[in-house]
């Protein structure tokens, strides 16, 4: 596959959307990537794990074992597809609803669970993985990603930076300022927008009057491209091409991955207040896992035994991650004070000491 093929072809102005595997699991495109069986299996099992880990998280929340949580179902295709294209020294600035991406990059599920359970520890990446903590204020992490890209340019590192967000983020001032910087400084950024049709209750069409989100790239002097976000291979192909382009110093790309948030916005939300069952069911037919299973089956990779082994591994992985997360002690008093500055200033020491004293006295 040559350089910048799909980015040129699937420009928003052409209104054509890159799809490799259609809803029925059939290959519909000349752009099918040449992935090894191992990688294809990896994509499948990651999507399955993300799906199951998500269901587990919702259950944990219902049982009071986790805080407010943002369900992930339906978006595994774009997350895993994108994650597969990331290379070792790349940097990643994830969306807050990005479980599949985290898993694909090797971020421990335990940490993801820790985060949603309310531990700062969950924000710490494992060694060797350049991933930022998720940004809760929508769009606010996009400039960070561009800053990392600028830094890579300054340091002459041949790396790429992946930054993920959803449709809501495209309305934010930070999206605009960041993408404009990316264009001006020709940074090695790939902006992946999960257009999941909603920002809480606001449908995509009320988020912006632009026909597509991808066309917004044009305002910054670089290319936008549209892909079927429920097709992990389409997302993989476009993201890989864009990351390669970035690493080659050829500037940023905006990818709009069209997908759907199947669940509620968070566990505090009730999506039935603002969208119809029918709409949700329409999208269920486009499920990324389902179609990828058929694709693998057609390729002779998937069979019930394989499915069972994936399910078994997933189950034990999730159980272990849950257990580890739940056994993690919460932060100590010292711990919550210690990282305010590199060196704790006197007034903070005093506050910490007072709190420790008070806590001890209370106990005794």
């Amino acid at each position, binding site marked *: 596959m040559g350089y910048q093929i799909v980015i040129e072809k699937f420009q928003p102005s052409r209104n054509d959307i890159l799809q490799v595997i259609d809803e029925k699991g059939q290959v519909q495109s000349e752009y099918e990537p040449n992935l090894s069986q191992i990688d294809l299996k990896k994509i499948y099992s990651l999507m399955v794990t993300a799906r199951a880990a998500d269901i587990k998280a919702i259950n944990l929340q219902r049982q009071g074992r986790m*805080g*407010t949580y943002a369900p992930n179902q339906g978006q595994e295709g774009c997350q895993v597809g994108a994650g597969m294209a990331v290379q070792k020294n790349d940097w990643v600035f994830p969306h807050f609803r990005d479980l599949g991406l985290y898993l694909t990059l090797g971020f421990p599920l335990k940490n993801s669970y820790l985060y949603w*359970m*309310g*531990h*700062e520890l969950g924000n710490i990446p494992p060694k060797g993985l350049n991933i930022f903590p998720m940004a*809760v*204020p*929508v*769009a*606010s992490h996009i400039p960070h990603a561009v800053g990392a890209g600028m830094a890579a340019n300054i340091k002459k590192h041949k790396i790429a930076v992946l930054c993920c967000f959803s449709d*809501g*983020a495209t*309305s*934010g*001032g*930070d999206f605009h300022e960041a993408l404009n910087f990316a264009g001006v400084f020709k940074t090695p950024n790939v902006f992946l927008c999960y257009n999941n049709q909603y*920002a*809480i*209750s*606001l449908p995509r069409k*009320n*988020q*912006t009057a632009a026909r597509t989100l991808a066309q917004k790239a044009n305002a910054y002097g670089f290319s936008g491209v549209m892909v079927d976000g429920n097709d992990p291979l389409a997302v993989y192909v476009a993201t890989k091409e864009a990351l390669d382009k970035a690493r080659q110093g050829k500037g940023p790309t905006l990818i709009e991955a069209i997908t759907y948030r199947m669940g509620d916005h968070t566990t*505090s*939300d009730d999506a039935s*207040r*603002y969208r119809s069952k029918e709409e949700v069911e329409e999208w269920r037919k486009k499920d990324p896992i389902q179609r990828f299973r058929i694709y693998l089956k057609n390729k002779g990779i998937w069979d019930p035994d394989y499915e069972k082994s994936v399910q078994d591994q997933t189950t034990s992985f999730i159980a272990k991650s849950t257990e580890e997360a739940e056994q993690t002690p*919460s*932060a*100590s*008093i010292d*711990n*919550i*004070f210690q990282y*305010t500055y590199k060196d704790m200033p006197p*007034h*903070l020491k005093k*506050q*910490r000491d007072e*709190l420790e004293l*008070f*806590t001890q*006295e*209370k106990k005794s």
Partner: protein
Amino acid sequence: MVQALNQALSLEMERDSNVILLGEDVGVDGGVFRVSEGLLRKYGNSRVIDTPLAESGIIGTSIGMAAYGLRPIAEIQFMGFVYTAFNQILAHAARLRNRTRGHYTVPLVIRMPYGGTVKALEHHSESTEALFCQIPGLKVVVPSTPYDAKGLLASSIRDDDPVIFLEPKKLYRAGRQEFPDNAYEIPLGLAKIVREGEDLTIIAWGSMIPVAQQAAENMEKEDIYPEIIDLRTLSPMDRDTIIQSVKKTGRVLIVHEAPKTCGLGAEIAAFINEEALFSLEAPILRVTGYDITIPMPKSEDFYFPNPERIRYAINKIMEF
């Protein structure tokens, strides 16, 4: 409190067709806390407006609407997301009247849920009222009961200046207090003594009022009777009520969720020092959040003031 706020919104929108509501998810969804439930149906989508996700845009357009002649009520979904609108608030909403010597005004209410202790996500527990209290031209209002919430919100909407209206998340569904169905106002700028006492003055607001009340109750066992002032309007502050109480008790404790340094408690202590130094029998203490980022839920309990910490501080004050 949610119902009281909802009533105030609805009554004011009924009373004055210039009153409109805008923000993220305020319409179809009725607000993520349901404060604007039902209003879209009642007043239509030209007056109840679901906006794109852009806080500076929400406040900036509200300023334009207000200057044009409307009385917008803008909802910021959580106080932690207001900061991108900070420039619009500080540089424009607060200044337009002065800049044009009264020619243009900004009758705008910015509603936002604030505060913690509800095990919320990062950036969802902010209490940065002091940022707004130092901006000339703004008013800052915080109710602590449903009754006050309804009356203060009505007054804020009818006020001709921009009002930051902070809603204590913690109390949204607490307090089953009765309140009349009709519209009524509670004047801005007046504090309320919610508990009379002789021994010391506790100054607090919003979600810290029930905490202070609990603490005060506990203190009775120790034969200490605090007076509690619910500030209600943080800016401009009701300095008279504070000074009067301090002159009576001679001892002061300030309780707020925000970090201690440069929290509103600092200003309160400073002006008491200035105006009533020689009435003070003990240092003014502050029980507040610490000067750290609010911890995530697993350790947030360390952070927020609670009745035990208040008792501890009161005992210190009474030692003098």
